[in-house]
């Protein structure tokens, strides 16, 4: 009798527990269906084109059956932090943050944009159109603009380039600063606030077409080898079904007329599935640079603290 009662109680408890779990799960699903999908954007996209982003968000929302919101942050670090904390489900980030070690890993490669037929881009070193500078050598002792401390084309590549010849930005240049945006690096060089700058080739070409009054004041004096194009990533903990649907919607853009228009506006051919090894060259370059600059981690730690303070 006692046992029977205990079993019943157990069932009840289990049942209650199960019901609670089920209810929780159902609630969770329900919430996901209505909660907007947060899609993080960084300096890889031209932020100024807000109307285009609205149209794109609408396009994705329609096809996902769920609102999609683009979330913009000043730096890669902030976007990565948001991905890590679950504040974002997707993000368009740079190859450099993608290859950085995370413990535990919380991002997964979703798709890579196809630009001019390939999932590749370069870093451009630009100077003012009227300046006499012809190579990186001429920029020694000058003012140099980087885009983001975690940008491949805007920071890692020029750093790597200088490390290979035994220099580092702090001493090689007279002054350096971060604009946290490729387009603003172009602007800083065009305004002659900086003598030179490192920018994403895709952004520079994009500006040449859509903001020629700024971009045409600059000229490229050095082009890097090709790197994997800044990828779209998903949060590891995100709903796999949603991730698959997002992947399909994005890949389907090139075959839908509306999607085509958007891709044309973005100057992209489409989005494709590629192996993470596409970014190995960036990983190697980061490792090389790190080797040449052992103090970099300490500096990064310090900056992390500063950012944390700022976020607070």
């Amino acid at each position, binding site marked *: 009798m006692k046992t029977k009662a205990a079993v019943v109680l157990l069932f009840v408890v289990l049942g209650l527990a199960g019901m609670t779990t089920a209810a929780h799960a159902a609630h969770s699903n329900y919430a996901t269906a209505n909660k907007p999908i947060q899609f993080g954007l960084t300096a890889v996209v031209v932020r100024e084109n807000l109307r285009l982003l609205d149209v794109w968000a609408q396009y994705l929302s329609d096809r996902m059956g769920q609102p999609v919101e683009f979330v913009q942050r000043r730096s890669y670090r902030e976007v990565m932090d948001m991905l890590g904390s679950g504040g974002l489900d997707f993000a368009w980030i740079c190859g450099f943050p993608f290859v950085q070690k995370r413990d535990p890993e919380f991002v997964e490669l979703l798709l890579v944009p196809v630009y001019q037929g390939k999932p590749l881009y370069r870093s451009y070193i630009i100077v*003012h159109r009227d300046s006499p500078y012809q190579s990186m050598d001429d920029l020694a002792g000058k003012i140099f603009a980087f885009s983001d401390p975690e940008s491949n084309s805007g920071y890692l590549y020029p750093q790597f380039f200088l490390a290979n010849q035994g220099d580092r930005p702090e001493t090689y240049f007279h002054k350096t*600063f971060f604009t946290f945006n490729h387009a*603003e690096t172009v602007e*800083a060089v065009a*305004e002659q606030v900086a003598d030179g700058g490192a920018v994403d080739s895709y952004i520079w070409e994009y500006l040449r077409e859509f903001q020629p009054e700024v971009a045409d004041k600059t000229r490229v004096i050095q082009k890097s080898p090709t790197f994997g194009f800044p990828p779209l990533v998903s949060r590891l903990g995100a709903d796999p079904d949603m991730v698959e649907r997002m992947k399909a919607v994005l890949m389907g853009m090139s075959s839908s007329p509306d999607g085509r228009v958007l891709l044309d506006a973005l100057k992209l051919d489409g989005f494709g599935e590629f192996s993470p090894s596409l970014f190995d060259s960036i990983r190697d370059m980061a490792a090389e640079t790190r080797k040449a600059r052992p103090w970099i981690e300490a500096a990064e730690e310090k900056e992390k603290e500063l950012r944390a303070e700022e976020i607070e």
Partner: protein
Amino acid sequence: MTLFSPRSWGFSVKVAITITAMVSGVAFTIGAAIVTLDWWRFHNDLEEKALLLAHSVAVAAPEAILRSDYWLLFKSLKKMAAQGPGNIHRTRILTAMVIDPEGKVLAHLQPSENPLGMLLAHSDEEEARLMETSMAARSPIVLDGDIGSDWVLEGVVPVFSDQKLLGVVRVRLSHDELYLKTERSALIILGLTLALATIGSLSGVAISRRITKPLTTVTEGMEAMCRGEFTDIEPVQVIDDDELGRLVATFNQMTVEMAEKKLMEEQMAVSEKLAALGRITAGVAHEVNNPLAGLLNCIDTLKKHPDDKQLMERYLPLLDKGLNRIRNIVGSLLVELRVEDAREVSGLSCLEDLRDIVEAEIDGREIDLVWENHLDDRIKVNSRRVQQVILNLLKNAVQAVPDGGTVAFHSFQDANCVVLEVDDNGPGIPPGNRSQIFDPFFTTKPNGTGLGLWIVYRLVESMHGVIVVESEVGRGTQFRVTLPATEVVT
């Protein structure tokens, strides 16, 4: 050249000018005060604006400076320049910058000329002064400067973090706006001044018209009176019973009285003329009649005794004498005509010839003749007339003085006149005779013709001269002839 001598301007012009000057003076003074006040108000506004703009950059500056975020600093300068509150009011931001405590550029609105991390280049002393003053600032200040031809105003705000000076934000504004605004209000005030001055001068003209119209009429009337026109002066209309009205009324009364007086004088002159004419006629009749009776008698007797030679010899000289006397009288009456022909001109030495004639007239009597002729011989005169005048006067004097008396002749030049004086210390002219001495046929001498002084008077008059008699009974007489220089041929 009355245009340049204000004293000759009309009263209406003077009143109009005075009122215009006063009105525009007041308007201009008030206007200048307003413009000055406006200037200071705009200046203060601009100073505030400069500080406000500098503050807008300084707010975000500490963090950006600490993080060496030069791009953020530059962007805040750009943003301030592009959409600062001044933009609405067309304030011209000449330049703006963030300078570190060492004077190096952290951000500059003209980055190409002022590179990041370099000492701010200052081309002139004024720039250096502004730089030094702004770097020394520990609280927000506004500086005035004179850069090139531009007058500028700089808002300076130092940036601190934890009481440590991180840098200085400088925003330099142009004074153009100030000039523009002040110019606008100055133009409005100038317009008002001109309008008031116009109204003032118009009312000045109106007021002075009201005053000067009767005055002008009165003046014209008086001018006519001066010319001797008394009868045709129109009475001036009396408008108000004020000072002017009284003046006009008095003037009207005066003209009427003057006209009456003139009429009376004219009537008197006519009767005097008639009286003189009567005297002359009576004189001529008397003087001619006297010898005529004797002459006719002689002719009668000769007719009766045509063959009496003795009678003929006795009467012919009598006839001759009598007819000559008549001829002399008629000749004297026509003296003017006679001497008119004599246009002989010679030096005054001709007067010396008279001396002998007078001495002959004295003819051994005990008379002292004083002769002082001080005239320059270069002064030429109508010698015949002057000789005649002086000779007549001297003859009279010689006849008037008793034995032991003195006759004197003085001549000298006085200003533009020649003065000739004949004095005697004879018995003088009784007061009752003085008004008649120049009348024709007036004589006190038993056998005088009474034409001597009359001839003198007519001759002096013909030379536009003046003859004056001063006489005192028992003391003597002086005749003074003054001839104007226009008649003295030099």
